[in-house]
């Protein structure tokens, strides 16, 4: 799981360079952390033969992080709603809820070559 901490740290460092405030940095870092944990746990299922791919792109307008796994794919529609009353006491299933809350854009799609790729974006310029 050291890679999860590293991914979060890299994203937060980039966010700091771009001038994001402390709260926004930590929220974006947590979004990267949750996506990376999903890639390791649900995507690659802890296989040390599979990699997690991390790409960070930044510009004056946005900070983009792309996290890919080498798993068997992922059907987001099959996830139970973590906010439904019957699911509130479930132990897991809140990661993507937090990711969506903390980023401006979220996209999950099949990764070229297999697995799943998540793209999260934080806009730097507020309209």
């Amino acid at each position, binding site marked *: *799981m050291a890679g999860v901490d590293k991914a979060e740290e890299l994203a937060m460092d980039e966010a700091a360079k771009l001038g994001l405030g402390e709260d926004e940095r930590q929220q974006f870092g947590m979004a990267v952390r949750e996506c990376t944990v999903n890639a390791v746990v649900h995507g690659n299922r802890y296989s040390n033969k599979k990699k997690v791919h991390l790409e960070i792109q930044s510009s004056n307008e946005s900070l983009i992080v792309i996290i890919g796994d080498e798993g068997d794919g992922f059907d987001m529609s099959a996830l139970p709603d973590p906010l439904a009353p019957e699911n509130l006491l479930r132990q897991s299933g809140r990661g993507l809820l937090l990711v969506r809350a903390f980023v401006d854009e979220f996209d999950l799609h099949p990764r070229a070559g297999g697995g799943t790729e998540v793209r999260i974006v934080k806009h730097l310029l507020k309209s």
Partner: protein
Amino acid sequence: MSIKLTSRQVGDVTVIDAAGRLTLGEGASAFRDYIRDLAAKGNTKLLLNLSEVSYIDSSGIGEMVSGFTSVTNNGGQLKLVGLSKRVKDLLQITKLYTVFEAFDDEAQAVRSFHH
């Protein structure tokens, strides 16, 4: 840094002082074992002090919920005190403010067990 957990008694309420990060891995599993152990020993009034917790991720939230369920299933109560704005935000986003009773002040939290 992972999570550091200590407990103390305030009357018949067991206050758990947590410090550090409650995240996937060592922190979350240590937290789970600690709460379950206290519940198994018959502690039914548990107050989790999060004032020194700097970071909680979804796994940490999951362990808090799991702890809540363990304690409740043993006939006890698990309440929260000392939530930072960030932790309050997490409880709002996840709607867990409807599950956890949370207080800003420890004395008030302790009294709430006796109402």
